[in-house]
């Protein structure tokens, strides 16, 4: 049994590195594939071993997915907002420092999963019952809060962007001939639009430094506290992911750019972990991978404890791996022509869109990219583009 767990853990970490680094290969896709072949796999192993693989992959993924989002501008829904602060640090030659910060954040996130879980298991069923009845108002409130948080003179622009993104979301998610419409939509809104900007401005990356400044303890405490408040809330609110949780959490204090990145790291991993704990606490999956876990296994308390240990071990191993691999990533990125790299990544994203979503996915990609560019040109914060998920969900609750 222990040997099987160790093997599943190792392969899970490897899969997490792959899904984290490769834009377009999401953990949901791997988990779904695993589920499809699970009938065969379960002849040789048990459901808990497959779940160990999924958990190790998910936690490792949350450490590694900042690399493409910061260096290449190819985010998923949990790292979408890291593109902004992370990319601006990259343009200052501090890409490695940005990765160190998100990695440190993710590591804090892993320890917080262990610390919060007992409380979460006790409180969530009660809290979930209450919020379920007022979900519509919570989501409207959260959206209004994010829009009104925009600086003076840009509030209407933020509303417009939120609504346009929402309309794209509604049509894309109801475009039945397009598979995995989220991929071209999020890639266009957050990644491709930034790549187009870099190609257009002929951005050349400065030499990247491997040095870093220590984050003040005060900032770590701020980020941790805000994340503890925001992440558990957002781990069961539909449409509010790690990125929005970080924005909501950042309202508790005036925080610096680096502290925001630290929060993104903490919340990304914390939400990913708590999604599995929520599956145990309320029996409802809150993410794509937890849907698959729920189908494979009805988690009991002793299995939950094992899974929490797996999260901790994967997180610690991922910390060492991501720091080593990011140095190689920087070495690679310094050697190449950055606008050219952006162009080829854009081409790759188009091919991935066709492969994952089909030809009509390109229409979603192009429309979403245009809106992403419009948002940049208007100087509006990109977080309002998350209307692409929030508006369809709000309409669902009407």
């Amino acid at each position, binding site marked *: 049994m222990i040997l099987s767990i160790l093997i599943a853990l190792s392969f899970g970490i490897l899969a997490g590195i792959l899904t984290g680094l490769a834009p377009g290969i999401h953990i949901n896709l791997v988990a*779904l594939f695993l589920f*499809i072949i699970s009938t065969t796999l379960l002849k040789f192993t048990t459901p808990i071993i497959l779940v160990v693989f999924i958990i190790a992959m998910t936690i490792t993924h949350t450490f590694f997915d900042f690399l493409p989002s910061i260096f290449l501008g190819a985010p998923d829904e949990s790292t979408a907002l890291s593109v902004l602060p992370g990319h601006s640090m990259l343009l200052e030659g501090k890409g490695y420092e940005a990765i160190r910060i998100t990695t440190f954040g993710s590591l804090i996130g892993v320890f917080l999963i262990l610390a919060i879980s007992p409380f979460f298991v006790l409180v969530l069923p009660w809290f979930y019952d209450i919020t379920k009845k007022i979900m519509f108002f919570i989501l409207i409130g959260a959206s209004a809060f994010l829009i009104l948080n925009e600086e003076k003179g840009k509030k209407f622009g933020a509303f417009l962007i939120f609504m*346009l993104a929402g309309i794209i979301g509604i*049509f*894309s998610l*109801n475009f*039945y001939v397009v598979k995995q419409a989220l991929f071209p939509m999020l890639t266009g809104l957050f990644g491709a639009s930034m790549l187009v900007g870099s190609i257009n401005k002929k951005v050349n990356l400065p030499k990247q430094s491997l040095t870093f400044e220590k984050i003040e303890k005060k900032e770590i405490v701020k980020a941790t506290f805000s994340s503890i408040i925001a992440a558990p809330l957002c781990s069961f609110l539909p449409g509010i992911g790690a990125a929005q949780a970080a924005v909501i959490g950042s309202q508790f204090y005036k925080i610096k750019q680096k502290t925001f990145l630290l929060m993104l790291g903490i919340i990304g991993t914390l939400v990913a972990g708590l999604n599995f704990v929520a599956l145990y606490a309320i029996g409802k999956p809150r993410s794509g991978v937890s849907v698959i876990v729920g189908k494979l296994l009805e988690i009991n308390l002793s299995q939950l404890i094992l899974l929490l240990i797996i999260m901790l071990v994967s997180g610690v191993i991922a910390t060492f791996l991501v720091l080593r691999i990011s140095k190689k990533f920087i070495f690679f990125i310094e050697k190449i022509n950055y606008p050219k790299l952006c162009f080829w990544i854009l081409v790759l994203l188009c091919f991935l869109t066709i492969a994952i979503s089909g030809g*009509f996915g390109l*229409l979603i990609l192009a429309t979403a990219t245009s809106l992403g*560019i419009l948002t940049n040109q208007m100087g509006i914060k990109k977080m309002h583009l998350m209307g692409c998920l929030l508006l369809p969900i709000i309409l669902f609750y009407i």
Partner: protein
Amino acid sequence: MNLLKIAFLATVIGILILAILSQNLEPKSISISKIDLKMLDNYVKISASIKEVIKTDSITILTIKDLADNSEITAIMDKGDVLKGENVEIIGRVIEYNESLEIEIEKLKII
């Protein structure tokens, strides 16, 4: 024309095309017997007759029978007024529940 105007126009035109296509393009018609695990999470279009209707407080559970080859599958929808014996055209997502495949109905048209 500056980039802002181009981006705005492209967004509006893109949304219009998306609106038209998403409302008019439908998934390919498929026989119920051809639905398998590989189609999990994909949308399908089925022509079937309703064999059984079970109404609960929150959802309606249908057993539907393919018009061509009589194969059957369970389909679920939010509350709806459908009757046993009616012929319907369904667009829905393939989901898995209790180790069997089902259809989560998005659109239902009585034919």
